[in-house]
């Protein structure tokens, strides 16, 4: 039986990012990073503070552009797109989950979940319907009309996950998604990510916590702006003797 060809969601080639500062100084944050992420993968990008993992995440999330190198998202070269083109790509292809949840506190949970759909021109009724569906997936059915201030931190992160799912993205980026949560709630959130990944959703999470990274199958470790390791998480743990 022929091996089924996997669909590449992300491909980066020789990605570099240099910050130029006043007085002609510059700082190279990413150095020739290359890798591919296939559809349905659950990848953890790890690294110490200042390693360049957040910069990598920003470029992958189309919030920033690389200084050099190429970035292909679902086969399209996005590394040199304009601000508005990147905004369009973020709205249609990417879902974000932030450490601080970043919910709009004065808006209902349904409004928060459906926020990305406003920028796609989706009508009000359809937005609400989609928000209800997403909240059901993350286990918050019935919370549509509450305010974020009326629910716990774990629930707020579930709302953020529902918001990341609502535009049916090609990939979800989670930046330290459990950074503001206690251990039990962190486990619940990571279990939810695993469930979503099992349903076929591609997830890239940035973390410095080993416990969180353990939920991912693959790990990319960044050290001083270079890719230090790219492979199975389990193989890395075996290699490190953990």
């Amino acid at each position: 039986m022929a091996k089924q060809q996997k669909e590449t969601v992300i491909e980066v080639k020789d990605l570099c990012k240099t910050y130029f500062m006043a007085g002609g100084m510059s700082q190279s944050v990413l150095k020739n990073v290359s890798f591919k992420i296939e559809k349905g993968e659950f990848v953890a990008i790890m690294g110490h503070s200042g390693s360049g993992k957040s910069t990598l995440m920003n470029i992958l999330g189309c919030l920033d552009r690389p200084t050099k190198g190429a970035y292909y998202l679902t086969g399209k070269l996005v590394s040199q797109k304009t601000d508005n083109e990147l905004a369009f790509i973020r709205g249609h292809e990417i879902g974000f989950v932030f450490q601080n949840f970043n919910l709009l506190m004065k808006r209902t949970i349904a409004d928060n979940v459906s926020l990305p759909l406003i920028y796609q021109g989706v009508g009000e009724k359809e937005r609400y319907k989609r928000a209800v569906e997403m909240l059901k997936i993350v286990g918050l059915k019935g919370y549509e009309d509450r305010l974020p201030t009326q629910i716990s931190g774990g629930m707020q992160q579930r709302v953020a996950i529902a918001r990341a799912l609502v535009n049916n993205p090609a990939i979800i980026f989670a930046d330290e998604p459990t950074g503001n949560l206690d251990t039990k709630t962190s486990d619940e959130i990571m279990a939810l990510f695993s469930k979503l990944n099992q349903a076929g959703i591609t997830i890239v999470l940035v973390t410095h916590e080993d416990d969180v990274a353990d939920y991912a199958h693959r790990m990319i470790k960044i050290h001083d702006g270079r890719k230090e390791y790219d492979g199975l998480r389990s193989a890395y743990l075996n290699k490190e003797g953990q």
Partner: protein
Amino acid sequence: MIYQILKESWISISAYKLRTFLTMLGILIGVAAVVMMVAAGQTVQNEITKTFDSMGTNLIIIGPGETVSGGVRGGRGRPSVSFDDVESLKNLKDVKTASYLVNFAVQAVYGSNNYGVSVAGTTPEYLEIGNWEIDKGSMFSEKDLKTGRPYVVIGQTIVEELFGLQDPIGKVIRLKSRPFTVIGTLKEKGDGLMGDDQDNIVMMPATTFRQRIHSGFRPQYTNVAFVKTVSEDKMEAVANRIEYQLRARHHLKDGVANDFSVRLMTDMVEKVRSVGFALSVLLASIASISLLVGSIGIMNMMLVSVTERTREIGTRKALGASNKWIMLQFLTESVMISFMGSFVGMVVGVLGSQVAGVVFEKQVPISLWSVVISVTVAVVVGVVSGLMPAIKAMKLDPIDALRFQ
């Protein structure tokens, strides 16, 4: 997209009700002040127009010429227009009627009542020229004028002050200790342009006036004469004919200046109206300062809002909002606040000016100006004061915005 931006903007500004209201207050007070000041200016203009209308606008006023001594212009000269001059003007083409006036202030006495009055020696035609109407009795006649009979027609103030509830017709009043029979009363006319009481008047034949009240320096001459034309558009032509006629009658040679002046009531109305308009503009300009302060308030609030909502802006951008969307949302919020402030300000201004009208017993017009000013100000102030904060929001880097604490 426009509906969505409007809705998002509305939700955002209604989430901070007190702050939005306080920001609105600046524009509200500014617009209300402008509306009230414009209304005040217009009321003054209307009062002026009403006063002129009560005298009639198709009127030409003839007075003494200016004195010139050693090339220096002085004040008005001595009376130079005679009663006969005025009589001759009645025959000119397009002249409806003509009259003249000589006046003097005396004390009027009836029984134990006395009152300071203005006595006007004139001709029967003055009734029509001054748009006066007889209330009771009649005006003195041409014959009374010729014979100098001691008849008077009195205004409503004198009726009230001297006679109270009595019927004055046929009664005898004393002016300068001389008796005069009241043969008619005038209908009320109200205050004049300078706030003078137009109803404090005693009219009598000019001949009687000269014989019994004040003979004057030149008894057969007047300080002011009036010519009423058949219509307003004939005024210029009639004024030229008057000048020609009077120069001929006064035997003035070519190159010699007029010893009389001819003024058109329409010109005077125009001049006074332009002063009234300038007053309106001045008042509105002063009130606009508060509008400026209000717009600075909006800009300040929107700048604070952009800073406070930096992370929200970052989140919206991360979730797909374009720079244009972000800019339009903040601009719309600013215009909405400004528009609401202007609308409420307009309502407050209109109501305030109407209340002031009731208090001061004046009819205050509701001007279309108010609406135009309000809407224009709302849009302009909203856009101008919201533009800088909106551009600031638009230019925010999504990464920095997401990191903002």
